[in-house]
């Protein structure tokens, strides 16, 4: 295993040096190198996103208990659905989705108003309190 890592590092460093020499020989300007880096970053980011999405759809990343309370029965994976978790999920989706779309539309990060932050705070607080209230006391150890 260490030999494989060592080999990988040598190949990686070799590719990086080769790319540097190629950029120098082809007289790439810094702006062209930046564009190439941007393309590589785009590919990596979208590839990560696609892998996560595929594993969710495929079921390898399980979402079964995403809005469930902890199971009462040890044989079950998760308990009944929790309203506070569901609420937190839809708020996160809506606010994060709108933030993403508006930031893309305006070309810069948009400000989030205090009332919207308050909304997420109430939702998150409600989730935490509900989790604390719903928690069962631990059985005393013998």
């Amino acid at each position, binding site marked *: 295993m260490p030999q494989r890592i060592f080999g990988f590092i040598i190949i990686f460093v070799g590719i990086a040096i080769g790319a540097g020499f190629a950029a120098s020989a082809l007289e790439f300007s810094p702006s062209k190198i*930046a*564009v190439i880096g*941007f*393309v590589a970053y*785009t590919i990596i*980011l*979208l590839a990560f*996103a*696609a892998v996560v*999405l595929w594993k*969710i*759809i495929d*079921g390898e990343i399980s*979402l*079964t*208990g*995403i*809005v*469930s309370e902890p199971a009462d029965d040890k044989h079950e994976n*998760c308990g*009944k*659905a*929790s*309203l*506070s978790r*569901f*609420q937190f*999920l*839809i*708020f996160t*989706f*809506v*606010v994060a*989705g*709108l*933030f*993403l*779309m*508006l930031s*893309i*539309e*305006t070309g*810069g990060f*948009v*400000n*989030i*108003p*205090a*009332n*919207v932050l*308050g*909304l997420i705070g*109430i*939702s998150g*607080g*409600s989730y935490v*309190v*509900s989790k604390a*209230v*719903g928690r069962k006391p631990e059985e005393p150890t013998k």
Partner: protein
Amino acid sequence: MIDPGQVAAFLKTGLIVWFALLAGAVALKMLQGEIRMDGIFRPQPNAPMAPERVAMFVASFGLVAFYFLQGMTPVCPADGGACSMPDLPEGFLTAFGGANAVYIAGKLMRSG
């Protein structure tokens, strides 16, 4: 040479599509029953429906729908400063806080 603007447009489109597919996948798994949604209106699996849960569900969905429709357009100041997401009316926040408070109170009372 590739135009950086085209790469940015590709990345933006890819991210929006990814986000929409993620939301769609979660919604589909809820409808198929793969994500458990049973008992969302009940404090315990076999207990009757709790009114405070229904109230909170309606308040949450109403608020989310309202904000989603209102939030499609950014609020940009005339002086060219940073744009902002649309603000929520104060009354909405109070109503939502009230629905959450009633839900928590109900949960506390039932848990004894």
